[in-house]
């Protein structure tokens, strides 16, 4: 394959004119159609398949896709395929299939045209090939445009600054509602059923019982009066007193007085050196 590849019509060649395209004489072969044989492998790699190769041949020869001269195109395509086979290049079956298709179209175009013109248009054997070529070309263009769109990591980067976080264990949240529900579950099924109503007053006493126990941390006797803070008002004093009585009743504290009018001392009944 030493001669330049030529897609121009092979008939009717006047001096200097090597062909005619749509009535216009062609004087020069398109230079870029000549591809040295040793570049075949590169070419095969460069094309994405038979449609791509065909499209290249057509576009380079400046042929209207909608009016493909089948004879020269087929000839040229076959030359490529032959050259590739000659060089023992692994030729995808797609290329051979396309060769067969081209040959079939060419032979059908040689058949006598039907008499009615409108039918002739409808039955153009090239129609399917043209459709595929145009669709493929559209895909090629779309691919190029997609590739041209700004793309993350190639043309821009996402912003994502470091999120500073105190390392805190996520602890379960408990709402008052949760506590209510929990208590109700207990109340509904426990022996507590009969006396589970707890009034605010009762809670207040129990809270003060806890407060007094906290004050009594440790082993020592504490002066009775020191458990009470007059600044908190009468109500608080009364509740504190009730709490102390309740603590005594539940035998959680011990109250001692050595003699009448002597100082009263309070001490935790467990008498231990406190917890913790």
């Amino acid at each position, binding site marked *: 394959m030493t001669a330049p590849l030529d897609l121009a019509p092979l008939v009717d060649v006047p001096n200097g004119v090597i062909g005619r395209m749509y009535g216009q004489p062609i004087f020069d072969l398109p230079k870029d159609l000549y591809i040295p044989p040793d570049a075949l492998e590169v070419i095969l790699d460069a094309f*994405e398949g038979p449609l791509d190769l065909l499209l290249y041949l057509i576009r380079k020869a400046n042929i209207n896709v909608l009016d493909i001269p089948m004879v020269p195109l087929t000839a040229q395509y076959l030359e490529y395929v032959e050259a590739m086979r000659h060089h023992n290049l692994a030729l995808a079956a797609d290329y051979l299939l396309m060769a067969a298709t081209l040959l079939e179209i060419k032979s059908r175009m040689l058949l006598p045209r039907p008499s009615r013109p409108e039918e002739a248009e409808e*039955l153009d054997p090239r129609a399917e090939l043209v459709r595929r070529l145009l669709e493929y070309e559209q895909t090629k263009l*779309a*691919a190029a445009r*997609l590739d041209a769109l700004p793309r993350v990591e190639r043309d821009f980067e996402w912003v994502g*600054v470091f999120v500073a976080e105190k390392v805190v264990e996520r602890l379960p949240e408990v709402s008052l509602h949760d506590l209510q529900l929990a208590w109700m579950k207990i109340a509904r099924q426990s022996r507590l059923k009969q006396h589970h109503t707890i009034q605010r007053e009762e809670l207040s006493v129990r809270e003060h019982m806890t407060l007094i126990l906290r004050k009594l941390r440790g082993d020592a006797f504490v002066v009775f009066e020191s458990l009470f803070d007059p600044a908190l008002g009468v109500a608080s004093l009364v509740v504190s007193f009730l709490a102390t009585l309740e603590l005594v009743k539940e035998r959680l504290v011990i109250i001692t007085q050595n003699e009448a009018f002597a100082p009263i001392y309070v001490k935790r009944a467990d008498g231990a050196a406190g917890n913790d």
Partner: protein
Amino acid sequence: MQPETIEQIKRVLETALLAGSSPVPVSDLRRLFDEDPGSDLVRRLLVDLAEDWQGKGVELVQTAGGWRFQTRLEYQVYLDRLKQERPPKYSRAVLETLAIIAYRQPVTRGDIEDIRGVVVSTNVLKTLESRGWVDVVGYRDTPGRPGLYATTRKFLEDLGLRSLTELPPLTEIERIMDLVDLPKTEEPAV
């Protein structure tokens, strides 16, 4: 800290968007606050913010998944200098397959092969799938039950598109075809 002023709400929005590793929709941005500021206010502040960032190397954009900050294209030449590895350059086979899936989804591998006129290698589809740009969204009820490929939201986001309708328009092949009135029917049995 409870945001009281509009300015503070804006700061919180900005902070959340700067910190976001993915686009944040307005509905999520509203959840940032104890008291929902409403979508109108959030949208207004986002537009405000986008304006505040004019002239900076970073811009606030709206993508398929929501709002996010991204660096401006002009700065990539600098950022590239710090990169350890080049971003992948995709082969024509990959790009053409992506184009077919993007514009004609959902399509099977067979559809792609019909259009490209060659066998589509498994690697090509794997490349697109591992980038998270396409996935199988169903199966066509034909022999072999071939998978139907479609593009993902990540594809739109990575290309800065809000929806498929923002894809560059296809060259108007249909119009050309109509002009010549080519038949699409079967070949006659000659």
